[in-house]
């Protein structure tokens, strides 16, 4: 621990960050390391290729289900802006603006 406040480094927190770093490095390096050594069937590859989107949906589903009409409508705004512009920053600003607006109305 250095000090309290902005520069504080709690040993447990640093430990969690180190563990997060290790598992992330494992995923970043592991796929390349593993797949150059084993032959992956097309079937398995097809399964693996849906993982990123499926995980995004798995995070999003319960998160949105716990929200209300304001969050659902704002999510719709993000989809619309993203679909039309493919601009992440614009979509985020639109979504956050929309959720603030819809919450104020609701």
């Amino acid at each position: 621990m250095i000090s309290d406040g902005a520069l504080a480094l709690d040993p447990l927190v640093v430990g969690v960050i180190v563990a997060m770093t290790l598992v992330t490095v494992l995923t970043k390096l592991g796929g390349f390391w593993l797949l150059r050594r084993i032959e992956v069937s097309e079937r398995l590859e097809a399964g693996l290729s849906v993982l990123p989107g499926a995980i995004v949906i798995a995070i999003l589903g319960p998160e949105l289900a716990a929200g209300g009409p304001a969050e659902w409508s704002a999510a719709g705004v993000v989809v619309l802006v993203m679909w039309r512009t493919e601009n992440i920053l614009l979509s985020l600003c639109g979504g956050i603006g929309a959720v603030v607006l819809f919450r104020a109305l609701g």
Partner: protein
Amino acid sequence: MTKLDGSNADRTHSEHTGEPSDGPVGDPQATAAEGKPITFDREGIRAGFLTCLPIALGVGGYGVAFGMLARRAGLSVAEATLMSATVIAGAAQIVAVELWAEPLPVATIVLTTLAVNLRYSLMGAALGPWLERLSPRQSYGSLLVMADENWALTMRELKSGSNRGAFLLGTGIAIWCCWVGATIIGATAGGVIGDPARYGIDFVLAAVFVALAVELWEGHSTLVPWLVALVTAIVAAALVPGEWYILLGGLAAATVEVIRHD
């Protein structure tokens, strides 16, 4: 962020079956680039850095959001910055600080980080045909700074027949600088801002993932696995304690896809 075209389901599975030398996730176009010697030099790093800079500035938007969320979750500016500098995985970090609580759910945070980042193993593998032509130090070193955005840019660059092996590293350096810098800004400002719901900051995570989902949508083939992931996650979130629903949703979708594949 740009289209994550490397993970597209329309990747031609049939064409590389006859070429085991191309690697398991070989791409037909990689064979064309096979002839050219791959480079790893300052010019490649520079080209990657400059190409990625506008996108990296956009990533800074997430960085500011992450810094604010981290500060609100109770992390110090130093801890938030350390996490951004070493983990370098936007979605996982934002999810992790959402899980931050007293006492710290260490196992849940680390396992969820693993689950959210499992996609990196696929993305790294997709770069395999080019990376395996570099030295281990160059390829594994570049993979350390791989994130969604610079992976997509690198995929595009290398598929177009480029031989700049250092492109991933250059784009990654741009992402790293903006990500860490933005975290410091967000974490510093985050201590000042009051109720996050008033500014819609609590919606940032959902908005980020909605935008990501739009980018990952690949048409009709995506519908079934996503519905499976959605239903599994919602049911599991209600029945299973912790954040296991994320991993369960992803695995259920992958399993169904493996069974469905023909």
